[in-house]
C-alpha cells in the first residue's frame, strides 16, 4: 500500500507569548529569536499512525511525506523520514504564497493525485499554528474520498480503513473503503523519537521539489490568487489592562479580597 503523510512546519508553539510578535504590515508572525520552526505536533502523530499500520502489515508499504512550505520545510520532511517514512515531496513555489486552507488542500490533493497509487492520506487533526483543522477534510473533498477526523486509532485491513474517532462524550468507530483520508488526534499517542542512525539515514532519502506546473495547477488557482478566505488583520489581542494583583497582609486576607472581587464580578 502507499500512504501519504501531510506535514507542516510551524513556529514553535513553546515560544513564550512575550517573544510572540506580529508584523502588522504583512499580517505575518515575526520568527522569535532562538526558536527554530518545528513539525506541527499533530502531523508527527499522523506519521506515527501511518508507520504503525505499515509495521503491522509487515509488507513493503510505502510512506510518502508531503509538505507545502518554504525551503526550510525540508526539516519537517526530514523529521518524518527519520521516523521511518520513505520519500518526501516539498511543494514549494512562490505562486503558493498567501494561500488559505482551500488552496493548500488543492495543492496537496494535486500532489496526491500525481503520486497515482495512494491508498490513504494521514493528516494531523489541525496545524498547531492556525488551529483551523480543515485541510484534511478539504483534501478529501478535492479527491472525492471519504474522510474520518479526530482519530485515536486507525487500522487498515482488506481495503477498509477502520477509525476510532474522539467525540465529545466518548468514541465511535467508523469503517470506510480505501482510498480515504484520516486526521489524527493527540489521543492516538505520542510520535516516536528518531534514533541518531535513523536521522542519518533520512539525510540520504529522496526529497523532490514540485511546483505548480509539475502538478498541473494554474497560478490563478493557488496561493493568494486562489484564496477564498482573506486575512484582514492578524493582531495580538489587547488584554483589558494589567492584571490586578490582589493584596493583603496574609493569604487569608488575599483570599477574602479575591472572593469579594469575584462576587462583585458576579462570577461567584
Amino acid at each position, binding site marked *: 500500500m502507499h500512504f501519504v503523510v501531510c506535514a507542516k512546519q510551524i513556529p514553535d508553539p513553546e515560544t513564550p507569548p512575550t517573544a510572540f510578535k506580529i508584523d502588522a504590515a504583512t499580517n505575518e508572525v515575526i520568527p522569535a529569536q532562538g526558536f527554530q520552526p518545528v513539525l506541527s505536533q499533530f502531523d508527527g502523530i499522523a506519521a506515527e499512525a501511518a508507520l504503525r499500520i505499515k509495521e503491522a502489515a509487515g509488507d513493503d508499504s510505502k510512506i510518502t511525506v508531503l509538505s507545502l512550505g518554504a525551503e526550510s520545510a525540508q526539516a519537517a520532511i526530514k523529521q518524518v523520514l527519520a521516523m521511518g517514512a520513505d520519500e518526501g515531496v516539498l511543494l514549494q513555489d512562490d505562486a503558493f504564497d498567501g494561500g488559505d*486552507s482551500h488552496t493548500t488542500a488543492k495543492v496537496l490533493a494535486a500532489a496526491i493525485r500525481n503520486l497515482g497509487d495512494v491508498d490513504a492520506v494521514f493528516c494531523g487533526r489541525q496545524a498547531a499554528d492556525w*488551529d483551523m483543522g480543515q485541510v484534511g477534510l478539504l483534501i478529501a473533498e478535492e479527491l472525492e474520498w471519504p474522510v474520518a477526523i479526530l482519530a485515536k486509532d486507525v487500522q487498515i485491513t482488506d481495503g477498509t480503513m477502520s477509525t476510532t474517532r474522539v467525540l465529545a462524550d466518548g468514541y465511535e468507530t467508523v469503517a470506510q473503503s480505501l482510498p480515504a483520508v484520516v486526521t489524527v488526534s493527540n489521543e492516538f499517542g505520542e510520535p516516536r523519537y528518531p534514533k541518531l542512525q535513523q536521522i542519518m539515514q533520512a539525510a540520504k532519502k529522496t526529497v523532490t521539489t514540485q511546483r505548480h506546473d509539475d502538478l498541473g495547477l494554474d497560478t490563478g488557482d493557488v496561493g493568494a490568487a486562489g*484564496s477564498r478566505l*482573506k486575512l484582514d488583520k492578524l493582531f495580538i489581542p489587547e488584554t483589558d489592562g494589567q492584571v490586578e494583583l490582589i493584596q493583603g497582609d496574609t493569604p487569608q486576607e*488575599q483570599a477574602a479580597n479575591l472572593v469579594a472581587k469575584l462576587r462583585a464580578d458576579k462570577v461567584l
Partner: protein
Amino acid sequence: MARNILVVAELDEGALSSTSTELIGQANRLSDGGQVSATLLGTGATGAASTAFEAGADRVFANDDGGYDQYNSDIWVSAVENAAGQSSPDAIFVAQSVVGRDMGPRIAARQGSAVAMDCVNVEDVGGELKATRSAYGGNAQAMYSFATSPAVMTIRAKAFDPIEARASASGETIDAGAPAESRTTIVGREFAETEGLQLTDATIVVSGGRGLGGPEGFETVEALAAAFGTNRAAVGASRAACDLGWYPVSQQVGLTGKVVTPDLYVAIAISGASQHMAGCSGSKMIIAVNRDADANIFAMSKYGIVGDYKQVIPALIEAVKAVG
C-alpha cells in the same frame, strides 16, 4: 443589507442545543431583514422546530428520521446541501462541535466557498460579514472576510447570547428529506467513563501545573474545585504536570489536550506557555496564583495572587466556602 443565513442546528436529547440557540440568535441579529433558516435533523427535529422559531429562525428544514441521530458526515452534509439549495444562504453557521469540525470544511467545499473555524465573533463591518478567531495558541487573533459566498463559519459555544425568546413565534417547516447514502459505516459507539462533570462542560475549571511540585499538589487543586461545587467545577492540568504523571492526561488543558471555555479559569502554579493558553484563552475570566510574579500567566489574567499555592489555596478554599 439583508442576508440569508442558514444555521446547522443540533439536537441535545431531542431539544434544540444551547449553542444552536445562540447561533440562531446571532443569525437573527445579522440577517438584517433576510431569512434565517435552520436545519434540524434526527429524532425530535420537527418537535424542536418551535423552539428554533422562538430562538430567531424563520424557517426550519427538519426531518425526524433516526438515521440522522448519530452524526454521519455524508448524510448530514447532503441534507445541509439540500437546505442550502433551497435557502440561498449568504452565510452558514455551524457550532464548533463534533458536527461542525467535520461539517464546516465539507459544506464550504461543496458550496465552492470557504470556512473560518472556531470563530469567537462574527460581525457586520460596513455591510460585510467578518469572522474573528484565535490563532497561535491564543497569542493572536485573526479577522477574516470572504472572497466567496456563502461565508461558512463554525462558532464557539457561548460566543453569543441567545436573543430574547420570541414567544409563540411561528415559521415554516420544510421536510429536510430522508437520510442519504454514506460512504461511512458507523460500526460502534462507546461512551467514555467519566466521573462527575466533564472538563468541557464545567463553568469553573481549576487547573494545576508543574509549580505544584508533585502529584500531591493536585489534592489541593481538587479541594478548591470541590469548594466551588462539583456540579459546576472540574479539575484540569497543564501538559507539564500530565507529562510528569501527576494527573491523568484526560484532564490536560492545552493545545494537545482539551480546549475549555469556562466562565472562570483558575490557573494554579501554571506558567502560561502558549500551548497551555491555547486550551484556556477562551475563558471568560482567568485568575492566577503563582509564586513567580513574572510568570506569563499573569499577563493573561484579570486577577492574580503572587504567593505560594500551599498557603494561598487553602485560604481561598475557606473564603469560597464562607460565601457558599
